[in-house]
């Protein structure tokens, strides 16, 4: 390989944490297989910026010594990567709307979240706290439908109040004055949907 890591521009573009992560991934693969660290590298960037900018993708390409298109290909292939700055929310909510979840009321969950956050499905809240991602594929948790991922963690057997609770845990701590307001917003829409207790 002819990658001289010290003189690369990418070193100045990628954050210390990202470089540390990428180096960690690189250690797990043979030296001439740097491309193998690509998924991990992009994940590290997602973790920092919540989306992949061209700048960072190009920096990853340079750092790994692979063509830029190879990075774009991978980034555009996996739905866990976002390439639009508008999709960069600190927390990502992905409600499954595929068949099993749909039959179990995922539409209502989506509507609820939309009105709670005041944004449309696919948008990010203006304060950048939440990105409400459109998840197109079945997330393979049909037996717990309806379900969603919150920051990639699975939450099954959703009810509207459960959704409220979950989202509230993500919000930064507020002073007492604010509590009333936020509660009223949440209360407004806590009527129950198909609420299957139990689960695993």
């Amino acid at each position, binding site marked *: 390989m*002819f990658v001289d890591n010290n003189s690369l521009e990418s070193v100045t573009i990628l954050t210390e944490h990202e470089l540390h992560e990428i180096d960690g991934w690189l250690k797990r693969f043979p030296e001439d297989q740097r491309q193998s660290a690509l998924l991990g590298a992009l994940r590290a960037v997602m973790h920092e910026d919540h989306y992949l900018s*061209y700048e960072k993708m190009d920096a990853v390409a340079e750092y790994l010594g692979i*063509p*830029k*298109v*190879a990075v*774009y*290909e991978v980034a*555009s*292939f*996996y739905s866990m990567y976002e390439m639009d700055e508008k999709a960069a929310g600190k927390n990502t909510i992905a409600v499954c709307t595929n068949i099993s979840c749909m039959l179990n009321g995922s539409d209502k969950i989506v509507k609820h979240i939309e009105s709670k956050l005041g944004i449309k499905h696919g948008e990010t809240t203006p304060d950048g706290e939440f990105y409400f991602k459109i998840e197109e594929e079945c997330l393979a948790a049909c037996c717990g439908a309806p379900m969603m991922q919150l920051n990639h963690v699975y939450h099954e057997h959703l009810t509207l109040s459960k959704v409220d609770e979950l989202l509230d845990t993500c919000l930064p701590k507020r002073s007492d004055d604010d509590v009333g307001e936020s509660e009223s917003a949440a209360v407004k829409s806590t009527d129950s949907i198909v609420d299957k207790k139990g689960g695993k």
Partner: protein
Amino acid sequence: MSDKIETIKITVDGKELEAKPGAMLIEVTDQVGIHIPRFCYHKKLTVSANCRMCLVEVEKAPKPMPACATPVTEGMTVWTRSEKALTAQKDTMEFLLINHPLDCPICDQGGECELQDLSVAFGGSSSNYHEVKRVVVDKNIGELVSTELTRCIQCMRCVRFGEEIAGMRELGAMGRGDRVEIGTFVQKSLSSELSGNIIDICPVGALTAKPSRFTSRAWEMMQTAAVASHDCVGSNTHIHTFKKKLVRVIAGDNEAINECWISDRDRFSYQGIESKDRAEVPMIKKDGNWKRVSWEDALNAVAEKLKAAHPDNIGVLASPRATIEELYLLQKSMRAIGVNSLDHRLRQTDFNQQESMGLFPWLGMSLSDIEAQDAMLLVGSNVRKEQPMINHRIRNAVNNQAAKVFTVNPRHLEFNYPVELQFVSDPLEMVNTLAGVAAASFKISKATIPAGLKDLLNAVEVTAESKSLAKTLKDAENAVVFLGSIAVQHPGYSTLRALSSVIADNTGATLGYFAESANTVGAWLAGMVPHRTQAGGVVEEVGKSTAQMLDKGMNTFVLLDVEPSFDCDDAVLANETMKVADCVISISPYLSGSMLEQADIILPSAAYTETSGTFVNAEGVWQSFNAASQSYEEARPAWKILRVLGNVLGLDGFDYVSSSDVRDELKKACGGVSEVNNSFEVVGIYTTLDKLAVTNNVLQRIGEVAEFCGDALVRRAEALQKSAPQQDAIQLNSAEVTRMGLQVSLDENQLVDVKQGVETVSMPLILNDAIPDGCVLLASGTESSSLLGSAFGSVEITS
């Protein structure tokens, strides 16, 4: 190949076949002409087996198998046209057509489309799919290739081509599943010098040639085999014409020469043939006014002028792109009237020791042998742009057998393979750098340093790098030192050549040349040099070289397809010399503005595709071709013009009937020589260069020929010119810019005034940190350069 290669037996469609174990089924069937339909498989690319069109029935296999990805095994029985196979193929076809538009009537590929052909041969007449088809937004990927990506069937040939052949991945498959799109993702023009090949390999009309888009249908065109005319490889091409008008050029197959690829320059240069400044009729200048005359009058006038001038005052300059027939007839007629000053080495400036050249600048090996080299030293060559197909061979050597490549160049170049080490120094210093390597090679060989090189070699420092280069060449089983066009143009060429020769001798490497143009080798064989006649014959009196002719001001010039201000090293000098000459006779397809000023008689000749002829490539292979299109107006093939001129001059032996008669006469004289001894004894004194006084704003010029400016044809090829606007710019590194206190605004096309000699031109400035300190890259052959001085002189940036 030894005959003991084990073979196995397989049965295909009831026929017993022998095959190499491990070969893919499709390779075996292709060899014997059993046709299996395919889209993604391409003999020069890796197998990706994603289109499934090649499904065949294999006995004992539960499902149909893809022939492109199924290795043959002993006793295998295959049915390519059984019901099971045909059903699988038909179903695949139906599947592929789900998203393919029915726009064949307006598709450039219609009539030569693999999808169309196979759909007729293997598809059904109706589809079960009645839903909407997908639409893909087209991408702008530059001036050369048009996209219509809704037609793409995702065979990935273009993507694999980028990675495996072009050596740079520019196209990729974005997205996933039914939404996969081919593209660059970020809008960008393709920059590979081989990018046009994706037009040939795309099985559908998704990637087509932009310049010939919507101009004619495949079945209306005539195809003529031709030989490309811009580099020393002689790539085989096919020229397509419609009603005798040029439409496009595609690659021809010739495994030994260009495999099945051609460079973009060879593919798109044909546009220059339909340039607006073609010369229509013979013309004579009388009292500063041009008069159109008949061929008879024109040739009589030429004969008169030639007879009136003293032969020693007649200079003949010919393009190394002229056919061997033209060069030979010009040489023969001129020598017959006593002219000795003939040359085709238009950009060369140092002719010292020219006698030590072999019969012609030979590659030193066959093109395919390049792939067997283990170590290579490139001296003065931007090989990727100069000789794209040779670069491709070098790349194969690097990729397939870890060949080590070293370069000695005046600037750092971008390669599409790993290069062991690039020795970069300014043009003058380049000689010392190479001398360092030579000195290191003497340390290894313990040979005595020839007297002429002693001073130079003793004065240089032998670095660890040059030692390791010399050692690598020495240790390699097959090693070669190649001299490229930058070396030939270099003011110290004779020294570079002598140094390369001793390095080769000392390390046991071969010495090879990248001949500059399509017929440089032919020009040597035809005797288009001042010191030899045809086939290397001796001359009684050595004539003047290009440099001497331009410098000493002959009073009569004969130019064969030469535009002095663009084709010669020092445009200012060439312009001046032509202007003061009593008579300049130009045989050329074109009438440029400067030509009208400089010439006195213009004989319009047929352009490249309008004449039959022969080129001899760098390996020494003679390749003849026929005319593909009609001559323009009254233009005539130059070999005919010269034959008649021979008659008008009353010379013997000018009764040829066809161009092949001319070729055969010369070929006989050459006696079938195809290999040349490139090595020579280094004796005598070599050119030493004075240090340039690099002052504040004076910098050394690196004047290598721009990729698309090497000859009159390509300079007029519109799409290629548009694709490379950076050719006509001045490039220097940011440190120099700061040092000179130039104000640079990066986003705009900033112009600076550049002065060389007496002329000043205004040209765009590009920052390029690969240019060494104290230098500028200001390529030759460009508009700006046609007003400036020597390619490796010094230039001043005045503001």
